[in-house]
């Protein structure tokens, strides 16, 4: 159960997974979430958005949170209804300040090869919030925002 999360919300039970810190584990979890959304009738635009944000969140957790330490895990929880999908991703790192990430669209950062993940998550999801420790992100996407 994610921290501070109710057990269920209108019958939406959280589905939890613990992923080892290995990038190749992402796709299976990602497709599970996308398949769930497709079964609920979410359109292609929403599935694309959630898939992209999901992958960015997990990659950030593994690379920047867990620093690719194979002894650490990423805790994933998601729940979906016909109205919305919520995704929580927690790493076992030291946390970070999301406000401290430079704007990747600024001219001086445009040629930098990294730093766009959080921006994409915020662009494609309707709500993105971080725990005070900076080790957990909650993302929400509504069918009809």
């Amino acid at each position, binding site marked *: 159960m994610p921290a501070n999360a109710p057990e269920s919300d209108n019958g939406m039970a959280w589905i939890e997974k613990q992923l080892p810190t290995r*990038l*190749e584990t*992402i*796709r299976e979890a990602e497709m599970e979430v996308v398949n769930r959304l497709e079964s609920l009738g979410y359109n*292609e*635009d929403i599935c*694309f958005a959630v*898939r*992209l944000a999901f*992958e*960015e969140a997990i*990659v950030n957790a593994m690379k920047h949170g867990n620093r690719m330490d194979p002894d650490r895990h990423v805790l994933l929880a998601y729940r979906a209804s016909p109205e919305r999908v919520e995704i929580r991703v927690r790493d076992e790192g030291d946390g970070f300040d999301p406000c401290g990430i430079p704007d*990747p*669209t600024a001219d001086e950062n*445009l*040629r*930098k*090869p*990294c730093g*766009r*993940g959080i*921006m*994409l998550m915020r*662009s494609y999801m309707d709500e993105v919030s971080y725990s005070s420790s900076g080790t957990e992100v909650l993302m929400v996407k509504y069918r009809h925002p």
Partner: protein
Amino acid sequence: MAQEPEIIHVAARNGVKLVRVRADAILSEADVEAFGRGLLALAEMPGQRVVLSFLGVHHLTSLVLGKLIHMHKRLAESGGELRLADIDPHIYEVFAITHLDRLFQIYEREEEAVASFTGGAEA
């Protein structure tokens, strides 16, 4: 040693390297690394003009964007240039959100991108 699966296919057309990405090749993170290595290998020769076609690619992440930026920089340093083509509307939106549509020259079709190098039809 196991042979790496082909991530990109490279052909020459009118002096331009035309690179096509295997449709599902950049879906796994391990493949993204191979994708990046393949692109950088192309940039080893100076002055390379490269068109990268994303035909059939419907998903990418910021890791792939990072590889493209690295390739773009490496080619520019060696007097070459990278141009992109056949980008799915969803993926184009990613370029637009990140403002990378300002960094890369993007063409609707690979023929237009090749022609832009060779002085043929313009995009």
